[in-house]
């Protein structure tokens, strides 16, 4: 084994300080054996999207290294990237299809499995139309696979029931960008971090979530002219430890805090009137809404001291450059879209957008979430087209050579939470789950398990491992993963990377693309000229078809090719004749995507989610100006009370990804973060007589879990449980955080509210347990060490 650094002990590695130049190279590598050759790819274990080379020896992955030419990482990799690849070699990969026979999952041939799916599909369509069929996919497959799935769903079957698990992680990002700018698409570029004077992280623990992006910020902090950091987060995270100003709002009070900041900016005259007049609409309403949120009232509601709020506003109000990021602390909390939009508004009223050093990253949670959104494998239309715009739908119909009526666009496609609700009521009869694990990741797991075990629901699970969700499958399809197939990924700053196939998949596992195409052929989907639909078979053909779909749209890929993407670094879309090398910043002409003919959505009521209609939009068409939308505060739907007196919030730990289907196969990552835990404040620990490592029962109205206690670094009244841990490797106790969470969602983005539930806690056992307490102690050691590293 050879590694350039120990990313477990020191997550972010050595500093390479810099300012306003190209980020210096640092090459990270970890191999178990010396590879025979390297294969170009991108890391898929967070949303940063770092270039990665896969090391191959004798048809097996033996290690990885960063790519120094890569604009995103400049050679760096985080702990998940350096270790997670071992999952490919894991002995417990799924290698054969399985079919449930007499209640038991038994091995089957591909023919048997696919023919069963096809006959089931045809039965359902005969009896109930394709509205009886739903798809729930991922944020971790490749662009080509999503686009193929989207075409099968929208033009082959014609079902509106298709969404990705991006609904849980990134739907609000898309919604907020649509609301403000008319279309999805991140305005900024990661290179903005190279020169920004102020960086604001809202509900985003970037140090743990996107470790390589955080390295970039740490390098800035050590270089000349270090940026000032504003962190808005109720927890004292690694990120918050570096903050110039750390605002710790009570759960669910993002809107009061952000309205309060805007209020100060307006009152102090720290806004760009020329920019507001020339490039935005809605300022008067924004002013009226935020006017009520003076710092004193903000403090009363959110607990953020007036002086801290002012300090943050002054930094924001006096900087010439600003990067803001938002993630789950915004997206999975109350008033998600409305809060994310306020982050956009801060940039707009200060005129800090569409130029170097000024970026908004409405972050994604997953490596290819952007692709799920672009291609329409979530609840959107491909190429950021507007389901309410008949001309857009005609474009798709022409592209696919199908009747426009075939494409389900009578209302927005069905979001994941509603898909599961339709399954619960029995009106969706077949649910095809690919590359995701809802039995651990959805809210209120008791309910999800009940839904998935319904007799009248035919469940297909397409995955690489025997996940908790597989337990409920009627058919399991073994899938190839990253490293075993070719395809593209697009990250938060619109950088498109190609991931080449490095090795063969194990056993009979097939790529998701091959599986979807196989289904389409067996279903015999045809276009108007009786030609097979989709018309492609290979990843590159799918990519070429996708390019045509994006022509003239904001996410224009037409200037890219597999050859060009294989040359070195990734390329930022739009990439076309006008911008052959891609585009770091969108909207540099300050003309936003809000024109009626161009916009992806007509907008929504920020309180109810009511859709603005095409006719209404024509009357307010801002023709390229951005919307300053805003709304007043609404308290969370569930709040602590006498019976359930504490807030539960959920989130990630740095060493694990999602439900650990991949990271859970790495010994080093698992040793670093072996088990779930509940983080409790010192005050609450004293109240409940809980000591470090004690086993604690956490109960909500939905269920209860047992977790070893970790004490400190969190506000009184709040407890935190990481959401990664389910049951595939340890079913000895109830431990998945989502046993407790609440089934509810944002009215616009439909993203569930994982960030708050009312719970009660009690100690059930002293720290005498060998298992969890030892693990908790170990975790605490690692945590303390990294906090020290941060403080250093």
């Amino acid at each position, binding site marked *: 084994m050879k590694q350039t650094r120990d990313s477990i002990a020191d997550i972010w590695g050595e500093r390479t300080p810099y300012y306003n130049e190209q980020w210096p190279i640092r090459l990270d590598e970890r191999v178990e054996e010396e590879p025979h050759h390297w294969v170009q790819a991108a890391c898929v274990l967070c949303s940063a999207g770092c270039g990665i080379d896969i090391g191959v020896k004798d048809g097996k992955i033996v290690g990885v290294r960063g790519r120094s030419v890569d604009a995103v990482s400049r050679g760096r990799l985080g702990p998940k990237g350096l270790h997670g690849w071992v999952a490919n070699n894991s002995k417990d990969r799924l290698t054969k299809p399985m079919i449930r026979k007499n209640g038991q999952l038994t091995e089957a041939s591909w023919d048997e499995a696919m023919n069963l799916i096809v006959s089931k599909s045809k039965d359902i369509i005969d009896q*109930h139309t394709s*509205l009886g069929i739903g798809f729930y996919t991922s944020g971790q497959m490749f662009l080509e696979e999503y686009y193929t799935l989207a075409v099968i769903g929208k033009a082959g079957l014609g079902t509106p029931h298709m969404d990705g698990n991006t609904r849980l992680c990134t739907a609000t990002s898309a919604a907020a960008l649509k609301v403000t700018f008319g279309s999805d698409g991140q305005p900024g570029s990661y290179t903005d971090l190279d020169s920004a004077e102020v960086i604001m992280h809202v509900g985003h623990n970037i140090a743990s979530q996107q470790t390589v992006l955080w390295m970039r910020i740490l390098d800035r902090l050590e270089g000349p002219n270090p940026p000032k950091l504003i962190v808005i987060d109720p927890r004292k995270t690694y990120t918050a430890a570096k903050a110039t100003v750390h605002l710790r709002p009570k759960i669910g009070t993002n809107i009061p805090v952000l309205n309060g900041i805007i209020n100060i900016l307006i009152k102090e005259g720290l806004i760009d009137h020329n920019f507001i007049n020339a490039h935005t609409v809605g300022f008067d309403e924004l002013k009226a809404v935020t006017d009520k949120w003076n710092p004193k009232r903000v403090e009363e509601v959110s607990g953020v001291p007036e002086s801290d709020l002012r300090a943050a506003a002054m930094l924001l109000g006096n900087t010439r450059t600003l990067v803001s990021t938002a993630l789950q602390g915004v997206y999975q909390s109350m008033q998600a879209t409305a809060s994310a939009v306020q982050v956009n508004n801060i940039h707009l009223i200060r005129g800090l957008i569409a130029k170097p050093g000024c970026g908004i990253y409405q972050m994604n949670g997953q490596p290819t979430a952007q692709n799920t959104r672009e291609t329409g494998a979530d609840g959107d239309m491909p190429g950021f087209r507007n389901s309410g715009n008949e001309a857009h739908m005609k474009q798709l119909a022409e592209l696919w050579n199908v009747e426009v009526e075939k494409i389900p666009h009578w*209302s927005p496609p*069905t979001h994941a939470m509603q898909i599961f609700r339709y399954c619960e*009521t029995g009106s969706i009869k077949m649910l095809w789950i690919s590359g995701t694990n809802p039995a651990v990741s959805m809210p209120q797991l008791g309910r999800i398990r009940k839904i998935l075990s319904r007799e009248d629901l035919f469940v297909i699970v397409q995955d690489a491992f025997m996940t908790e969700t597989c337990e409920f499958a009627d058919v399991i399809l073994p899938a190839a993963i990253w490293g075993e197939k070719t395809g593209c990924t697009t990250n938060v700053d619109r950088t498109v990377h190609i991931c080449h196939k490095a090795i063969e998949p194990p056993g009979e596992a097939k790529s998701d693309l091959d599986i979807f195409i196989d289904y389409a052929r067996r279903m015999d989907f045809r276009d108007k000229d009786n030609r097979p639909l989709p018309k492609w078979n290979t990843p590159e053909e799918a990519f070429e078809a996708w390019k045509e779909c994006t022509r003239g749209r904001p996410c224009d890929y037409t200037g890219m090719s597999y050859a060009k993407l294989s040359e070195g670094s990734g390329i930022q879309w739009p990439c076309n004749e006008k911008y052959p090398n891609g585009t770091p910043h969108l909207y540099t002409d300050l003309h936003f995507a809000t024109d009626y003919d161009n916009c992806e959505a007509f907008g929504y009521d920020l309180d109810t989610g*009511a*859709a603005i209609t095409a006719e209404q939009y024509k009357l307010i068409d801002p023709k390229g100006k951005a919307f300053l939308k805003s709304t007043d505060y609404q308290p969370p739907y569930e709040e602590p009370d006498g019976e359930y007196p504490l807030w539960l919030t959920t989130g990630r730990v740095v060493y694990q990804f999602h439900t650990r289907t991949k990271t859970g196969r790495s010994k080093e990552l698992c040793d670093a973060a072996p088990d779930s835990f509940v983080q409790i404040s010192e005050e609450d620990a004293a109240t409940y007589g809980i000591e470090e490592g004690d086993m604690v029962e956490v109960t909500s109205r939905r269920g209860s879990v047992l977790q070893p206690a970790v004490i400190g670094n969190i506000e009184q009244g709040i407890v935190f449980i990481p959401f990664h841990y389910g049951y595939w490797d340890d079913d000895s106790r109830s431990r998945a955080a989502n046993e407790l969470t609440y089934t509810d969602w944002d*009215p616009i983005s439909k993203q569930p509210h994982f960030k708050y539930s009312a719970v009660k806690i009690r100690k059930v056992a002293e720290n005498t347990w060998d298992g969890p307490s030892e693990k908790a102690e170990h975790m605490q050691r690692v945590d303390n060490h990294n906090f020290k590293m941060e403080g250093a």
Partner: protein
Amino acid sequence: MLVGNFLELAQVVEQEMVKAFTMVAEKHTDEPDVYETCSLLAKWSKQHLKDLEPFAQKYPAKPNVSPPRMERMKFDNEQKGSFALMRDLQDLWLLATEADTCWLILAQAAAGLRDDELKATLTILQKTTKRQIAWLQTRIKQAAPQTLIVGI
């Protein structure tokens, strides 16, 4: 003058809105978005009642003139499920539309009376009522195909 009598009618409509939104919310708790949004919209109608109060004082209703009442659905039936939900949303829409026309009618009177305060209040009420209607339409459109084609 019958402005007071019509204000009284509008109040009855809004009282029914509060009641109906609350009932629909509580009946369809299995549809979390319906529960939360209907609860929110009930609050908006409560606020409308508060906003109307000063004008009901200002324009007392003439005794012995009972305005003809429209026949309305009762929301206290026990039917649940998607079909019942769609019917309930449709009934709410009818009720909200009645409120909307109340503001239209009263706004005309307010103009004739040169009562700027009443006019301003009605503009606000009209706006929120339209937002209630917009949500109902959005949700009905979403529910309709699934309910009618694959309905359980």
